[in-house]
C-alpha cells in the first residue's frame, strides 16, 4: 500500500497529541447526521470535511466517552443544530488506512504501476483545545496530477463507511468517564457489543 498521499502521518502534527496515530489504535467516530438523511448512509461522512482532511475522530485509547461527547459531538451539534447524534462506530487505524483508491483505467494508464494501490485516507494526530485524543481523517493527496475523480472519491467514502459500520453502532446509555480503551484487542462484533453500558444496533 502506497501512502505517498499522507506525509502528515509520518510525524507528530500537534505538540500535545500522544504522537502519530499507530496502526493498532482504535479510531472512534461519532455519527452525526442531517435530519433528512438515512442513518445507515454516507451523510455522517461529509465530503467537504474529508476533502479538507478535517473529519473529526477520537483516538479511543486516550479518551472517555464523556470527552467524546463534550469535545467532538457537542461542538458539531452547536455549529449545526439541525443535525443529530445517533451513536458511534469504531475501527482500527489499520483498517482505515487499508482502504485504497480504486482508480479508473484511464487514471491507471496515466500513472505508473507503482501507484496502482494508493491509500485513500489519512489518519492524522490533531490535538485541539486541550483534547489530546482528537485526530482527523481525510482523503489522501498523492503528488499525482488529477489523482482523484469524483466517482473514485465517492467509492472511497462508501468503503470508509463499510469499515466503520463493520462492528455496529454503539450508544452508551451514560456519558461514561472510563477510557474508551481496548477496542483494538476486540476482534469480534459480539465481544465488542458485550462491553458494559453499550447497545449495539
Amino acid at each position, binding site marked *: 500500500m502506497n501512502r505517498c498521499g499522507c506525509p502528515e502521518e509520518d510525524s507528530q502534527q500537534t505538540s500535545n497529541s500522544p504522537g502519530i496515530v499507530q496502526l493498532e489504535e482504535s479510531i472512534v467516530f461519532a455519527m452525526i*447526521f*442531517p435530519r*433528512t*438523511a*438515512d442513518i*445507515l*448512509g*454516507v*451523510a455522517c461522512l*461529509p*465530503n*467537504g470535511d474529508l*476533502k479538507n482532511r478535517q473529519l473529526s475522530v477520537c483516538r479511543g485509547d486516550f479518551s472517555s466517552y464523556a470527552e467524546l461527547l463534550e469535545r467532538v459531538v457537542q461542538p458539531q451539534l452547536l455549529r*449545526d443544530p*439541525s443535525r443529530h447524534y445517533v451513536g458511534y462506530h469504531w475501527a482500527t487505524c489499520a483498517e482505515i488506512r487499508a482502504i485504497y483508491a*480504486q482508480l*479508473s483505467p*484511464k487514471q491507471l494508464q496515466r500513472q505508473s504501476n507503482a501507484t496502482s494501490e494508493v491509500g485513500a485516507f489519512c489518519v492524522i494526530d490533531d490535538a485541539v483545545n486541550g483534547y489530546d485524543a482528537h485526530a482527523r481523517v481525510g482523503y489522501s493527496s498523492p503528488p499525482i496530477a488529477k489523482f482523484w*475523480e*469524483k*466517482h*473514485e*472519491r*465517492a*467509492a*472511497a*467514502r*462508501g*468503503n470508509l463507511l*463499510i469499515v466503520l459500520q463493520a462492528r455496529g453502532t454503539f450508544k452508551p446509555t451514560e456519558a461514561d468517564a472510563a477510557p474508551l480503551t481496548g477496542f483494538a484487542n476486540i476482534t469480534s462484533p459480539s465481544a465488542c457489543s458485550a462491553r458494559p453500558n453499550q447497545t449495539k444496533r
Partner: protein
Amino acid sequence: MLKAIETYDPHTAPLNTRTKWELFNVFAVSAPLTQPRYSTNFLSSATTGSSLSSQATGQFWLLESHAWLLNPKILTLPNAWVRAETSSSLDLRVSTILEERLRSMKAGHLSMAAQFADAILFAKVFDDALLQPTIWTDDETEVVLEWILGEKRHVFVSFEGDGEFGYALRIDDRFIPGNISGAKPFQVPSDLIAYLSTR
C-alpha cells in the same frame, strides 16, 4: 403547438441579457431526448405562459438560468439557446416526484443553489418508475441522493454544484466508482439505472 421564436449564443450574450431569460432557457444536447415528458416537465417551470418546445426538434433541454450562471462548466457543452413561446396552457405539466421533493427542500437551503440546480437537472431525467432516494445536504458542499436498498445494496449520487456529479455503487462488500467519467446532471448513467432496476 409550441414554437421557438429566438436563438442566441450564450457565450457571447451579455450577462444582463442572460438573466432576462430566467426560466426560458434551454440548450440543445447532443443526444435527442425523445420522451414527451421532458418537455412537459419544462413547462411546469414557466410562470407566465411562455415556454419552449422540445417537440420541434426533440433536442432541447431545460437549463434554469441560475444553474447556468453558477455552473459555467455546463456552457462548455455544444449548445444553442432558444427562446420560445407556447399557445398551449400549462396543463401539460407532468411533475416528477424527485424534482418536486428537491424543489421543496431547496427553499430551506439558499446557499446551496448550484448544488440543488444540478440535482434538479438530474431529477428531470430521472425515471419516476425507479426507486426513490433519500435526499440530504450537508448545507456546505453537496446535495446527495442516496438509495439504501438492502444490507449490501447501496448507491449514492453527490452534486457539488460544478456541473458534474460523482456516484458510487456497492457491490457485495465494497463500493465501486461509477462507470461514466465526468457524469453530467442531465443524464442518468446506465450503470446507475441498471443497479436501481435490479430487485
